[in-house]
């Protein structure tokens, strides 16, 4: 856009507001046109990113109730009760667009932002997990983005003192122009310290804590997060914020001390839309009004306009609402932790949000009803199923691959190729750059099916996983979402954990495309069905639209973070590694066993993707028998009667067995009888399927746990020796040395990054 054209475009459109939205704002202001400052604030607060204007009607349909839910969606973080008067705060958020523009700072500030959400609730942040999506690593820019994002998470997360204890990463060409960086964070708090961001009490003061406000991140939410990508995106670099983990660490300590000593009425983090959002939202939440004195805001640079100050997204800032009596103590605390603090506003009963130039008797720069900024429009956007989907779903990917390999008896090469895919290979190159052991809590470390932590002060163990396979949702958004949610629950069951709460990060393309809205609503429906069936309420989430580059949308990628508990953290916890001579048992829903049920499929699988086969039908699950299978696995894992368990996920049964072998450096000898083709039997994917390793003496006892007719448990072989052998219908399909498998699986990701 040239400068002259820009000048001709009305300001509200330059800021991303439609003509109808301007009209609505004028109505809210009693027929007065908004001034530039007001317009700037509305443009950010009414952006897709802040207002959820396209998604809100669907998000309302999530099941959110549960006895243990202390705080549901809509607050800084969801909070659940984990017993012993302890609670867990959970939140997930994306930083996709900033990371695509500047990977290190984009990812770093993504970590910083979500951590502030957690401690604003009074919870000490204790863990982060990341769900990452990149294009294929044969592209140099993708390698740069991958290294940059991982370094950013490492650089910020380690220094801020919050361990990164798990996550997942998928490489797929659909994310080449638009990578995804979703960060999930967990915090722990005594229930008594639970704090909501509310400004109550006429005369109370709004204190801004932390970094000075600068021009960084101006319009991050509206400019970056609420539009797609094209070749001009590089010029958006100034919209990316810069992180300072040291200041954030001091903010954590200061704010927790503030809340612990009861010095704050409420605390709110400053995220998208900066001071405008934090001040107006806290006041609106408390049904109060608030006056802000813009001259009192400590600034990083001179010459900033009121609009720049009010919408700046400078990082590491918090807003505390305090009584005048406590002000000195609060300022003293800020001094102790070496952070800046300024009193920038006053709570009152006016129900108005007013901004003053310099002192409360000076010029009023903005004056709007306090709830107006947060009460953005709601759209019922056109929602139409993609007609191409029917044709794509009819493609029989299983058959295409079976024919491709109709003359193949030995699948050694394919096995090694699958294990060398960056999506499949060991992620140690990534998680060894993250502090994953801080707080002496990580009982099951990254690299397992789910992470398991002990919470100091609570008896229960807490399991966490994050999952989201976009390829499935691209084939069928409803069934894809069901499969992802079940996959997450299956992962938790491997560490003996009952799911308690789900947070979702819904990464989609352009909501103005009717078929994108349709995949969105179908994903919401699928998620809700699993949440209801498994009694796992949704306690929070984030929607990231406009994930497109040059007009092409990413695969619809819902990412589910599921948190759960096990009654006690003590006891034997079976890992992925099996023992010599363990009997290996394949446990799956009976419905997955029958051929043609569609539970296990090559459509969307790693093998199919290697051949660029991107059609077919997503796994179609029987939710109840899948959950029953997870329940049974959970029980044998919790009871410690099995020595190993691993869920069959990306890369199918072969990959599952190979990973168990890599973890133990022990081989296996397995025979599969099935009436399906070898390709499907070895590489087919579909969740809620597991391989367990059992000591011979415990076998009968363990098999009894799978006596429900909805569950199938089949002895498929034994662990032992140094070769990995899989026979399918009496043909030896795989016969490889453990050392060869391990070498390839362990080093493939690092090699792909450094090619």
């Amino acid at each position, binding site marked *: 856009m040239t400068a002259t054209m820009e000048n001709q475009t009305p300001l509200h459109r330059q800021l991303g507001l439609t003509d109808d939205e301007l009209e609505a704002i004028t109505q809210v202001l009693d027929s007065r046109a908004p001034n530039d400052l007001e317009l700037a604030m509305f443009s950010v607060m009414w952006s897709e990113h802040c207002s959820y204007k396209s998604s809100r009607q669907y998000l309302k349909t999530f099941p959110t109730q549960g006895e243990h839910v202390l705080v549901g969606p809509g607050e800084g973080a969801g909070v659940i009760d984990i017993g012993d008067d302890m609670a867990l705060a959970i939140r997930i958020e994306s930083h996709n667009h900033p990371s695509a523009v500047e990977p290190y700072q984009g990812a770093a500030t993504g970590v910083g932002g979500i951590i502030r959400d957690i401690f604003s609730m009074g919870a000490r942040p204790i863990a982060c997990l990341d769900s990452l999506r990149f294009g294929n690593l044969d592209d140099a820019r993708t390698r740069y983005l991958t290294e940059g994002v991982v370094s950013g998470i490492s650089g910020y997360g380690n220094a801020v*003192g919050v361990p990164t204890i798990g996550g997942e990463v998928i490489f797929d060409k659909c994310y080449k122009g638009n990578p995804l960086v979703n960060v999930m964070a967990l915090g722990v708090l005594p229930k008594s310290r639970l704090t909501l961001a509310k400004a109550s009490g006429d005369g109370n003061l709004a204190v801004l804590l932390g970094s000075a406000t600068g021009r960084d991140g101006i319009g991050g939410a509206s400019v970056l997060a609420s539009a797609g990508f094209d070749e001009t995106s590089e010029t958006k670099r100034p919209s990316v914020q810069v992180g300072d983990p*040291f200041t954030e660490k001091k903010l954590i300590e200061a704010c927790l001390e503030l809340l612990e000593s009861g010095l704050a009425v409420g605390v709110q983090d400053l995220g998208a839309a900066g001071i405008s959002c934090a001040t107006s939202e806290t006041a609106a939440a408390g049904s109060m009004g608030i006056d802000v004195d813009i001259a009192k805001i400590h600034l990083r640079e001179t010459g900033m306009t009121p609009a720049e100050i009010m919408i700046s997204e400078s990082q590491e800032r918090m807003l505390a609402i305090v009584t005048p009596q406590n002000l000195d103590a609060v300022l003293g605390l800020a001094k102790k*932790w070496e952070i800046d603090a300024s009193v920038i506003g006053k709570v009152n009963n006016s129900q108005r949000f007013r901004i003053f130039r310099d002192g409360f008797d000076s010029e009023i720069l903005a004056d709007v009803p306090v709830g107006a900024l947060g009460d953005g429009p709601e759209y019922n956007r056109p929602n139409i199923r993609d007609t191409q989907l029917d044709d794509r779903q009819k493609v029989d990917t299983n058959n295409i691959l079976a024919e491709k390999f109709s003359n193949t008896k030995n699948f050694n090469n394919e096995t090694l190729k699958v294990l060398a895919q960056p999506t499949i290979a060991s992620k140690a190159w990534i998680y*060894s*750059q993250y*502090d*994953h*052991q*801080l707080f002496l809590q990580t009982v099951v470390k990254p690299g397992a099916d789910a992470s398991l932590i002990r919470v100091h002060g609570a008896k229960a163990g807490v399991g966490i996983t994050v999952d989201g396979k976009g390829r499935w949702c691209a084939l069928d958004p409803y069934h894809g979402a069901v499969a992802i949610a079940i996959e997450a629950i299956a992962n938790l069951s491997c560490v003996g954990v009952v799911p308690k709460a789900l947070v979702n990060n819904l990464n989609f393309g352009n909501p103005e495309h009717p078929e994108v809205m349709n995949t969105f609503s179908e994903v919401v429906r699928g998620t809700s069905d699993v949440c209801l069936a498994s009694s796992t309420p949704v306690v929070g989430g984030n929607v990231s639209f406009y994930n497109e580059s040059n007009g092409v949308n990413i695969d619809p990628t819902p990412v589910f973070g599921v948190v759960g508990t096990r009654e006690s953290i003590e006891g034997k916890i079976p890992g992925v590694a099996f023992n010599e001579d363990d009997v290996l048992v394949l446990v799956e829903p009976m419905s997955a066993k029958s051929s043609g049920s569609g539970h296990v499929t090559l459509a969307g699988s790693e093998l199919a993707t290697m051949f660029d086969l991107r059609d077919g039908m997503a796994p179609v699950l029987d939710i109840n028998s899948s959950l029953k299978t997870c329940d049974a696995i959970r029980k044998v894992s919790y009871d410690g009667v099995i020595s190993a368990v691993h869920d069959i996920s990306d890369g199918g049964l072969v990959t599952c067995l190979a990973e168990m072998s890599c973890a133990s450096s022990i081989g296996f000898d397995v025979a599969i009888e099935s009436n399906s083709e070898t390709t499907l039997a070895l590489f087919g994917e579909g969740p809620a399927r597991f391989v367990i390793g059992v000591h011979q003496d415990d076998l009968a006892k363990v098999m009894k746990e799978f006596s429900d007719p909805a569950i199938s448990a089949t002895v498929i072989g034994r662990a032992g020796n140094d070769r990995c052998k899989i026979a399918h219908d009496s043909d030896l399909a795989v016969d490889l040395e453990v050392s060869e498998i391990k070498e390839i699986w362990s080093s493939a990701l690092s090699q792909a990054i450094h090619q």
Partner: protein
Amino acid sequence: MSQSTIAIPVFPGTNCEADVAHAVTLFGGIAKVLYHDETNLEGIDGVIIPGGFAHGDYLRTGAIARFSPIMPAIEKLSQKGVPILGVCNGFQILCEAKMLPGALQKNVGMKFICQETGLEVVSSSPITSRLSQGTRLTIPINHFEGNYTCDDSTYENLVKNNQIVLRYTDNPNGSRDSIAGICNERRNVVGLMPHPERASEEILGNSDGAEMLRSFMDAVVSSRMALPA
């Protein structure tokens, strides 16, 4: 004898203080977490400077922390022979404060490393007294700047005085002579990059660090007996 009190100084940016306090309690001590502006260390029997990012690691790791008000007080204790242990960032701070020789620079691979690492006990010290020379241990490391370096004469002194306490078996960060931990000439101040507190309980999957922390608590008791009441 009553329980020993271990001071755990916290600088802005320190993050392992709760972990070290947990471990101290586990091995029979009383943990006293002190903010870095504290100058009164009366009643303190030993000091463990925990890991983290004191002052954000800005300028250079430990470079700002050495000027904190608590540091002269710690140095005074060390001169009395009180056992002082620096873990990770604590080691870096002790080097910057010249209470230990040498320096820690960025890892050879220019990446942060968090992983289990093999160690070999080289000499007896407040953290290795319960372990015989040559004992192999696995302890996690967690650092970007753990690459120990020093000039030749310092190195020769370290060797001559038997001040190298621990060596990596598979040098992960490029440290000179695979040095993972050293002590001062008097052998009461020890610094090491690995985190024994992260490997001191079965539930965390590794308890190789327990004997190191028990050794330290032994050293504190011996020092209390040697000091005038």
